């Protein structure tokens, strides 16, 4: 296990390194450089800027800059945001918890719904339930996540007024609430965005789960379980589902990128103060360090998430030497 873990970590590091290289290339390709903003300021003498350029090594050949970039990254320095005028790392650090919260809640909804629907479809294969649910899942899968968000805002936010239509907290009252009230406020605001992301994710999960379940149900050990006289529910849950979950968890790991992509859109729709919204805003204002920093971080989250998923599957499957 430890050997596998080490190999997997190394692999993850290589991937992150490659992503880092890509972001470096993008930054180099961007017009201007980190000091461009300074040049526009009248009181800054051009010679000072030149000196700074030399200090930052911006006049050095590209491979030197690359190494310096790596060194800075290793120290957690992602550069300075043009327009926010503070380190990118700080800007991102401030919003990442919100995205993690959103993504986590969405994943919960995604799995709970997706696995449930997938199993139900498999067990009731070819009945009207299966067909109806297929229609629903394909429909959800085809729905742009941001549009779903808008529709949910329209229905539950505006028309019914059950949920707030934006933000992570209520700016007016949040500070004055007791801790439990604050938690409730947060959850209240979390509901619609998490539901939006979760529903779209669930549609894909349900499709995978249905397929995985059908494949497992056709296997011989399920027939043995029935032949032994086990109750149907036991056969399904303990024998079929346990095996069918394994590929779905792996696939869920592969769906992390989609989840984060969706987060960009959902955060924009709901004005949710997360990494995605930060990136979207940064792009419109051509704040390259911030955009690339966000992309890098998103990729890292994906790599970590994939590793965790792989770890989970490996631990759960006794055939892969979990010792």
């Amino acid at each position, binding site marked *: 296990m430890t050997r596998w873990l080490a190999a997997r970590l190394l692999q993850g590091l290589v*991937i992150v390194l490659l992503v880092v290289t890509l972001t470096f290339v993008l930054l180099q390709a961007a017009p201007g450089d980190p000091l461009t903003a300074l040049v526009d300021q009248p009181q800054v003498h051009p010679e000072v800027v030149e000196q700074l350029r030399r200090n930052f090594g911006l006049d050095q050949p590209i491979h030197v800059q690359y190494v310096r970039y790596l060194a800075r990254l290793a120290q957690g320095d992602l550069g300075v945001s043009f327009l926010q005028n503070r380190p990118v790392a700080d800007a991102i650090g401030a919003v990442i918890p919100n995205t993690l919260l959103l993504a986590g809640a969405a994943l919960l909804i995604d799995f709970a719904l997706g696995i449930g629907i997938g199993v139900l479809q498999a067990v009731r294969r070819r009945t009207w339930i299966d067909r109806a649910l297929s229609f629903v899942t394909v429909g959800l899968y085809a*729905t742009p996540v941001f549009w779903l968000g808008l529709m949910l805002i329209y229905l539950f936010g505006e028309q019914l007024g059950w949920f707030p239509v934006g933000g992570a907290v209520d700016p007016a009252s949040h500070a004055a609430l007791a801790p439990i009230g604050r938690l409730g406020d947060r959850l209240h605001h979390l509901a619609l965005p998490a539901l939006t992301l979760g529903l779209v994710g669930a549609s894909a999960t349900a499709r995978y789960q249905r397929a995985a379940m059908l494949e497992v149900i056709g296997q011989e050990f399920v027939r043995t379980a029935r032949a032994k006289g086990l109750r149907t529910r036991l056969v399904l849950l303990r024998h079929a589902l346990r095996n069918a979950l394994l590929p779905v968890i792996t696939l869920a790991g592969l769906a992390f*990128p989609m989840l984060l*992509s969706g987060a960009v859109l959902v955060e924009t729709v709901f004005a949710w103060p997360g990494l995605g919204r930060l990136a979207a805003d940064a*792009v419109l204002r051509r704040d390259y360090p911030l955009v690339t920093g966000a992309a890098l971080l998103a990729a890292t989250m994906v790599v970590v998430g994939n590793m965790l998923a792989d770890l989970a599957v490996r631990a759960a499957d006794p055939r892969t030497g979990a010792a």
Partner: protein
Amino acid sequence: MSRRLRLGTALVGALVVVAIFAPALAPYDPIAQLDLMDGRNLPPSGAHPLGTDLYSRDLLSRVLHGARVSLTIATIAVVLSITLGTVVGLTAGLTGGWVDAALMRAVDAGLAIPRIFLLLAVLALWEGISVLALVLVLGLTGWFGTSRLVRAEVQSVRGRDFIAAACAAGVGPLRLVLRHVLPNTAAPIIVSATLGVGYVILVEAGLSYLGMGVPPPLPSWGNIIRDGHPFLVLAPWISAAGGGAVVLTVMAFTVLGDGLQEWLDPRRA
């Protein structure tokens, strides 16, 4: 031909027809601002079956033309992605060794960056985005999955006896690839491409919604939804029109893709 395949083909066929004949089918010019005084944000009616938007443009015309824009962009981008992915996948699968390893790590990295983040990072470099640039960027960032798919197919075919037999008979490598390997990989590629068109439409809609996609006033379903966002309560039909079009279209491609999967590659359906 299963029912699903027939249905998918019919739907996608209808969409293609609509896209091609949009100028003839649309009652108005999609970018014409018809009546800035009284014609803004009108609800659906006889004159405007889907209503008008904030610039008093007819939504039905915009949606129909949007089909043209979105489908064209998605199709070309997917063709580009598939080609690139196939080339890379073939190279990796046939060469093996460190070339394979290097390529696949690059693919892993490409897949690790969430698509929208990657697109945003690249698109940020442009001041003004043209449709051509959009197509190129979408195509150049969408090949990773295909390359993995093709590589896996190549590896499984490679091990099979008929390849060894052909090799022993002196068949050259290029011919081997074209005649023997590629036909076997065709089925999953076709399915992936079909589903991919649906996916790219969703991505493009997202980008357009964020303002980084199809440049206005050219209609794209994504920017129709964007136009409608501020007026969600007053004129929900604007966003609804754009979104509904996307849902129907992507559903059509998904159904077709699933149907093709059943037909061409049943063991994996």
